[in-house]
């Protein structure tokens, strides 16, 4: 097994927990694995295929960027028989992929694509060795990122003859865990839960005055060790903060695709050591030596916070997480909750149009609705499933309430005078752990000496060409 691991993935040994999951899969047992970010989950579902050597591994993933990233990483390690079906591929490309399914090892899919009858019909004709659901918490209405498209996965899995199933997530409370099991129709699943604790990270919360926030970031930048990621809630904020920090640049979904690749590569190779970003950054980015994660504003949930903080210290070395809070920061999050759901006006307008036999495409252009807007897409899928206005509104109210509670839990984390690690662990129903270098409440924060940074002076274009063409990484 280790030889296979080394040949295909280049690792010498399995990481904790991986072997257990792989064994379960190879036994044909349905498995639910809860592994913290950076736990090496892709090896868990990519590896068994080399042992079984037949059948297709199907991977459902909620985000296009995640899928593209995974496919790229698989190709980078030299594996060619991988393909993806997403909204990006043309019809011809899709047909081509579907025609060679028998020869594929991995197929990545978005749930929307899996819902298409012609794709499902074709999948029924091939042997599916493993049905992988990534970010499985999206299936649960209790989860912090519920996606309606995920709700049909259990049904589809049944249609495909209930192939062995592996559900993966970084964070799941007990309620979410239960939901994943039933929704995916898992049969006596093995549950593998690794502690969400990240011993290498120490936690700090800094409560500051609103006007003081930029100064606070500047102060922290003097103390912390780079490479550093600074999370903001909005794109504008990311741009502004990047402007006030030396050597920083920003990353958000508003950048061109080319720009996103450039910035990622710079950060990965330590050519740039402070990245200010929205939550758009991070999915699938495997950078081991992030030493510090700063949150300029609070995320909406503890789950999201854990996920973002989890980008620090993946190499197992000391790292620090700092959360800045100014009074009323939570209001932005509460506001954002409301924008995630369609206004009542849309329900009325759409139902009226439907009664007159108008198509969705027509209504979208007449009412100037953006077909890509998640709030609209959600509403559309509910209407298509025959939900009444009352039901939709009630559902929305419940969801909003739930989300506000989650913001409150985050507020609790910020304000309560209790060990931060303990609070985080309790959130995931885990026992408290006492350790040195823990958090500001325990008073065990340790500061490393910041390394003196090299600064790059811009050079003229001839010099730059020379560097691009003929310098190796070491000389960067």
């Amino acid at each position, binding site marked *: 097994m280790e030889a296979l691991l080394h040949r295909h993935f280049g690792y010498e040994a399995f990481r904790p927990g991986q072997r257990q999951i792989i064994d379960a899969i190879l036994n044909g047992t349905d498995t639910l694995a809860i592994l913290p970010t950076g736990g090496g989950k892709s090896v868990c579902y990519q590896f068994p295929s080399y042992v079984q050597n037949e059948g297709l591994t199907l991977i459902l993933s909620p985000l296009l960027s995640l899928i593209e990233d995974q496919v790229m990483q698989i190709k980078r390690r030299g594996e060619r028989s991988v393909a993806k079906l997403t909204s990006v591929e043309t019809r011809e490309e899709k047909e081509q992929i579907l025609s060679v399914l028998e020869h594929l090892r991995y197929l990545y899919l978005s749930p929307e694509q899996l819902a298409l009858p012609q794709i499902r019909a074709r999948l029924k004709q091939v042997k599916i060795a493993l049905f992988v659901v990534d970010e499985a918490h999206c299936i649960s209405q209790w989860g912090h990122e519920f996606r309606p498209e995920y709700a049909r996965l259990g049904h589809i899995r049944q249609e495909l003859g209930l192939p062995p199933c592996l559900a993966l997530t970084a964070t799941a409370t007990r309620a979410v865990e239960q939901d994943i099991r039933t929704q995916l129709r898992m049969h006596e699943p093995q549950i593998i839960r690794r502690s969400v604790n990240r011993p290498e990270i120490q936690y700090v919360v800094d409560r500051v005055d609103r006007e003081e926030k930029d100064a606070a970031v500047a102060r922290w930048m003097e103390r912390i060790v780079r490479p550093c990621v600074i999370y903001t809630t909005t794109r504008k904020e990311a741009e502004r903060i990047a*402007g006030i920090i030396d050597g920083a640049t920003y990353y958000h979904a508003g950048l061109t695709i080319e720009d996103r690749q*450039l910035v990622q*590569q710079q950060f990965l190779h330590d050519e740039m050591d402070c990245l200010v970003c929205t939550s758009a950054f991070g999915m699938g980015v495997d950078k081991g030596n992030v030493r510090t994660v700063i949150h300029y504003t609070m995320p909406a949930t503890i789950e999201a916070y854990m996920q973002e903080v989890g980008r620090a210290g993946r190499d197992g070395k000391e790292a620090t997480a700092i959360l800045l809070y100014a009074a009323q920061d939570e209001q932005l999050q509460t506001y954002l909750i409301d924008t995630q759901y369609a206004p009542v006006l849309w329900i009325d307008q759409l139902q009226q149009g439907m009664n007159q036999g108008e198509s969705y495409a027509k209504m979208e252009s007449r009412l100037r609705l953006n077909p890509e807007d998640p709030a609209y897409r959600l509403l559309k899928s509910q209407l298509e499933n025959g939900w009444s206005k009352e039901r939709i509104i009630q559902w929305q109210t419940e969801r909003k309430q739930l989300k506000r509670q989650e913001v409150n839990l985050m507020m609790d984390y910020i304000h309560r005078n209790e060990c931060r690690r303990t609070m985080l662990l309790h959130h995931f129903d885990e026992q408290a752990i006492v350790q040195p270098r823990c958090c500001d409440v325990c008073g065990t924060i340790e500061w490393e000496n910041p390394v003196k940074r090299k600064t790059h002076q*811009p050079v003229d274009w001839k010099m*730059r060409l020379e560097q691009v*063409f003929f310098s190796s990484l070491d000389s960067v």
Partner: protein
Amino acid sequence: MEVSLLERIFLESIQRLRNERSDRSLYHVFQGKKSATSLQDAHFYDLESVFGTVLVSKQRFETILAELAQKNWIERQETLRLTHEGARLINQTDRAIIDQLGGELRGYAEMMWKRLSLLVQTMICLEAKQPFIPVQQETIVREWVKSVLPIISNRAEWLHDMQQELIFLLERLSERDATLISYRLSGVQAGWSYPQLAQMMKTDVETVQYEFTIAWRKCIDDLEKTPLLKQIGADLHTTKMTQSAKKTWELLQQGLTVEAVAIRRRLKNSTMEDHLVEIAMYAPSFPLDHFVTPSQQEEVRQIAQRLGTYALKRIKSEMQSDISYFQIRLVLARSKWEGM
């Protein structure tokens, strides 16, 4: 007041529309929409060079127009027009910015950049044995790079020659333009993002993007002395005609009648007319007399010139003889070839 590069592009474009087209028409030309109307707008109003090169979101487009109106540089009614102030602002430079955007090459410059940047990055990283994140993600670009890699036998030599070619081309540009291009390229080191370039150049992100577009367009203007670079775009076509109209044109050249082509290709009458207008706009020769009598052609040309318009409705209402919109379109389409 300071005019940004993008604002200038808007103002110059609006000026050429002669107060005859709506904001929607302008948006479609900016996006490069391959509809008969947009192709015709680009052709008639000398906006070929912006066609498909100003890819702002609809929302951003709206914001910019609103700002221009608020600054009192344009007036927005049914149609768009410049105010005196707006016209004064852009008439200060001798050469129009929009003529340097490269839209007349129909995506050639853009594709050249995508191919070059990915090929250079791939070659350098292969040579240095370094993994990398492909700077271009599109399948067609990546497939293209894959297809040419085996042809290049000596990587070190290729890299050397390519660098020499780039130096040769960049030397002809301004320091600023050359810097933009050199910093955008990736090797083992990653290129810089537009926000990073904007910071270095002390300007805003939008401006630096269009500066880069213009710089790159200039850079590849003449590739006769740079064979490697020329080779990269050798199979790219810059024809303006849409695929479908081209097919119609080919059949007509084989001697089929318009009716026969329409039946064979199952084209609606209006589609056939759109194709013929396209052919009239882009083909080197066109049997205009076959569709419009010489005297009517003359009449249309005179009216268009006298009124200084391309608005079909106005021309039609001035005509003494009976003529269809289709016929007027043909005459106007052809007039760019024959000189008005």
